[in-house]
Every structure is written in C-alpha cells, then in structure tokens.
C-alpha cells in the first residue's frame, strides 16, 4: 500500500537529491583529497630515498672488518689495501652512550618516580615537569656547549667524559617523560593493594609499580639510548674525534656520528665508503629500536584492555 504523498505531488523530489554540487565545491573537495595524498607521498619520499641511498652505498662494504679495524690511512700508490673499519667509532659510541646511560637512566627514573608517585600536583613537581619539557626542547648543540664549558674548559682536554655528560643531559628529559608516562598507566588499585598488604613505599614502588611499568620504561629508555647514539652535535667539540682507539675517558674519542661528519668532505674514497657503512649502522640501530619499542608499547596496552 502506498499512501499518497501530498508533498511529493508539489515538489519533484528526484531533482532535489541528484542535482550535483556546484562545480567549485566538487572540485575543491577532490583537489584537496589528491593534495593530502600528494603531501603524504612527499613526506615519505625522503625517508625511502634516504634508506635506499644508505643501503645502496653502505651495504656493499659492510663486513666484520668494519667493526674491528681502524680507518685506513690514505692509500699510497702501489701499497696493498689496508684493513678499513670504524672499530674506534663503535668503541667510542659504546663508551659514551653507556656512560651517559649510567648517569641519566637512574637519575631520570628516580625523578619520574617522584613526579608520578609522591608529588602529584605539588609545586616542586610542577617546576620539575616544566623544566623537563623545556630541557627536552633545548637544542642538542647547546648541551654540547654546556659540556664544553663545564668539562672541556676545566680539564683542558676534549674527552669521552665530556661527550657522555652532554649525552646524559640530552637523555635525561626523554627518560623522565617516558618513565612518568609508563608509571601513570599503572592502576591505583595495584598501589592500594600493596599498601594494604603492609608494604612500605619503597617496596610498593619497586616491586609493584616499577615492575608493572617495566615494559614502558624499557621502551622509553631504549628510545633515549638510540637517540643519543645518533646524536652528533653534542659530541663534535666535546669528545672530538680520533682515528685511533680511545686512550681512556679523558682523551679525545671517536664516535660513529662524528666520524660521518668529519669524513663527508674527505677526498679519500676509502673514507667515503666507511662513512656510508657507518651511516647504515646508525640508521639500522635507530630504526631497529623504534620498531622494537613500537611493538613493546603495543603489546602491553592491548593486553591491558
């Protein structure tokens, strides 16, 4: 049964609905969709081009020797090729990032524990959080200048130690933010449960809260480590660079990133080869860490839901 539609008679409904929008509205809509995707492609293009270039130039010369040998001196005519590698830079990066981690990770985690567990909403926490945010926006080169002023000028030598200090200041806010974020995700019921069982604050914090938040903390720490490993600016005039093995914490020390910066203008093809392989290692390291942390972040949160 189709009852008569009184309005249907006076208006031709079919025309109202199928009449297209004005051409400028249609065109604008389609143009913008295309533009958004062009922009997306434009954003991803550099990443893909860069990865391609680093793989193309870095991979062929990657060998065990890259990790164990020192950079070969400029070849003399007729000499047999010498072993060519960046063992010194690997060593230096490991020393400096390791030492920076030793300084910044405990400090950062403890500070984050205070911010998340003991001082929510207090004045100290507000200042500390503000300082953390500002510090994470301070350019890394300024961290280098700071370490130069405090360490290099007073010890009168460029050193791995100065580089480590610069890197640790760089890592500190990253560790604090990541740890605080992870601790905040721990439900309050767990804390109350632990306290109800008679646990002290120290016990509650470490055995319950930190233990629960550990995957998140580890992820944040890994990202901070990867970031520090890739940084150049804080090391360029603190740890400087040397073609030799490091002679200790208080002597100039090579690093992968500074090696790339120092060699990129070098006329020696051996060194150009070397720096692309070093770039491959660096990029591989950060990408690996990023993907790893992505997976680590995703799995606990999906479990929790």
């Amino acid at each position, binding site marked *: 049964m189709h009852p008569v539609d009184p309005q249907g008679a006076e208006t031709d409904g079919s025309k109202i609905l199928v009449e297209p929008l004005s051409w400028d*509205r249609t065109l604008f*809509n389609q143009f913008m*969709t295309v*533009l*958004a*995707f062009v*922009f*997306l492609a434009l*954003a*991803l293009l*550099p*990443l893909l081009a*860069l990865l391609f*270039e680093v793989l193309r130039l870095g991979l062929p010369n990657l060998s065990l020797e890259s990790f164990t040998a020192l950079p070969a001196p400029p070849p003399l005519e007729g000499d047999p090729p010498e072993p060519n590698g960046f063992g010194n830079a690997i060593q230096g990066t490991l020393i400096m990032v390791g030492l920076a981690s030793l300084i910044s990770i405990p*400090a*950062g985690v*403890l*500070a984050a*524990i*205070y911010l998340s567990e*003991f001082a929510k909403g207090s004045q*100290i926490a507000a*200042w*500390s959080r*503000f*300082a953390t*945010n500002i510090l994470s*926006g*301070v*350019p*890394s*080169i*300024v961290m*280098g*200048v*700071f370490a130069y*002023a*405090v360490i290099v*000028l007073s010890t009168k030598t460029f050193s791995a130690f100065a580089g480590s200090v610069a890197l640790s200041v760089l890592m500190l*806010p990253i560790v*604090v933010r990541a740890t605080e974020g992870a601790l905040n995700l721990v439900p309050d019921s767990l804390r109350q449960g632990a306290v109800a069982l008679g646990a*002290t*604050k*120290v016990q509650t*914090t470490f055995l319950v809260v930190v233990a629960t938040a550990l995957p998140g903390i580890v992820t944040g720490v890994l990202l901070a480590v990867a970031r520090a490993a*890739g940084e*150049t*600016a804080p090391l*360029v005039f603190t740890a400087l660079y040397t073609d030799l093995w490091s002679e200790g914490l208080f002597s100039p020390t090579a690093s992968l*990133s500074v090696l*790339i*910066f120092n060699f*990129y203008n070098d006329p020696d093809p051996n060194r150009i080869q070397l*720096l*692309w392989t070093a*770039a491959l290692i660096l*990029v591989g390291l*950060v*990408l690996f860490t*990023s993907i790893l942390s992505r997976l680590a972040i995703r799995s606990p949160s999906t479990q929790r839901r």
Partner: protein
Amino acid sequence: MAQGVAPLPQQVLGTGRSLRRRVDQAFIVVTGLFALLIVAVLLTIAAQLAYQAWPAVQAFGLSFLTSATWDVIDSKFGVLAIAYGTLVSSLLALLLAVPVSIGVALALTEDFLPAVVRTPLAFLVELLAAVPSVVYGLWGVNVLVPLLFPLMEWLNLKFGWIPLFSTPPQGPGMLPAAVVLSIMILPTIAAISRDVLSVLPTEFRSASMALGGTRWETIFRVLLPAGASGILGGVMLGLGRALGETMAVTMVIGNAPQISPSLLDPAQTIASLLATQFGEASEPLHVGALMYAALVLFGLTLLVNMIAELLVRTIQLERT
C-alpha cells in the same frame, strides 16, 4: 595507628615501623632531589652559558646583536647575520613543512584509508623523526643538493630579477638547508596535529556533514579552526627544533655568515657556527663570542618552546 591491636610487644612494633617509615621518607627525599636535579641542570646550563659568555658580553655588549661582522682573525664578533640565517632558514622550513604536515595529519586521521594501511603509514612518518641528523646531512649533500641544483639554476635564470633568486646558486645554501630542515620537523608537526585532530569531538564532524558539508569543507571550516591552537603548539615545537637543528644544516647551508636576500646564497646559522668553530676556538674572546651566540640560541629556543608549552597546556585544560 592501630597500636595495641596486635599482641606484639609495642616496643618492637614501634621501632620496626619507625625504621621503615624513615627509609620511606628518605626514599621520597632522594627521588625529590632527582626531580629538582632537572631544574638545577636547566638553570646550570643557563648560568654556565652566561658566565662563559661574560668576556664577550663585556667586550661587545648589545652591539653583538646588531653587528653582522663575524671576523675571527680581527676578533670582531657580531651575531646578526648568523641570527638572520637561523631565523630565515627556520621560517622557510616552516613555510614548507606546515602545509605538508597538516596534509599528512589529515590523510592519516580522516577515514580516507582503512586502519590496516593507516597505522603503518603513520609509523613511517614517525620514523622520519628517528633518523639521525648527520645522516640527513649526508643525504642532503649527496642527493638533495645535486637534485635541487638544476631547479635553483632555473629559478635564478627565469626569476633572477626577484631578489629571492638573484644570485647564481653554488650548491649548498639557504634553500637546500630549509628543505632538509622541513623534512626533519615535519614528523613533529604532523604527530601533534594528528593528536589534536583525533581528540576533536566526532560530533563536530557529524554536525557539519548533517548540514550538507563535504569532507573538506568540514575540515577547513570546523576541524582546523577548532584545533588551531593545538596545531600552532605543534608548529612552535617544530620551529624550536628547526632553530636548534645542527648537523644537517651545517652540511648543506654553506656556512657563510652573510645577510643576503637571495635564497640561493650560502648562509650560516648559530647552531652551524657553533658546530664548525668550537672545536678549534682557542682565543678567549672567540670562545666567549661563541658562548654568547649559544646563549642567544638558548634564549630563542627557550622562548619558542615556552610558547609551545603554553599552547599545548591550554588544550589539555580545555579538554578536561
């Protein structure tokens, strides 16, 4: 507390508790000190820069900011040309990066794509932020600069009458630096814009669509205005990053401290100045001048980041 409830001797219970309480209190104090350490580090950085810059501050005063001469041999130092290079390269990078970043954020928040495709693409954009600066520089020198060179020549040939393109390109220069910078700050702006857009109430979208708005009319007339302050916060963070970005810029900008209207000319930024000169600076006045320059950069980024912080914080307040 519940003293006397347990049959335990009160003495034992008391000392055990007070010891435990003391450990707890000590722990809180220790963590609190580490929280304050962050504030102390920030203040120490500022104080150290100011202290080390003092010789140069005394020698040049505020004329340091208005003089464009950076002459190491004659020990005449002014930061104007370098500050100009810093600001122009960063603003130019924003000009390039902001539209692209917002486009990326929209393409990844609106339902153009199924989530299966969207998530990995968003992750790839995030990876852009993970690539070390020095590797961007390396890529810039070897790929981007040769790629841009013909374009720069063409700009000079056809549009040389415009001051912006009035000099023959030399390869490295302001334009390539801005392009590299824009790639590096893009993920920051895109990520924050995406966050801002994805927390806007879905009701805005449906209300606009129900009034006969198309998708892009909704985006331009409702979503972007509603998210404007948050997106601006992201832009400021991107600007802060661009101002302080060092290695990649150092490698592609040509490092010539000059004020030239032409984008094809080499230039210099404060960060690249520090990176190239600190290692070999020995004259106290030279070191002081570099410290003074670092102080200017520190102040500049501090200002920008504080504005960004305030903008982002107002959004968090609005949300609650």
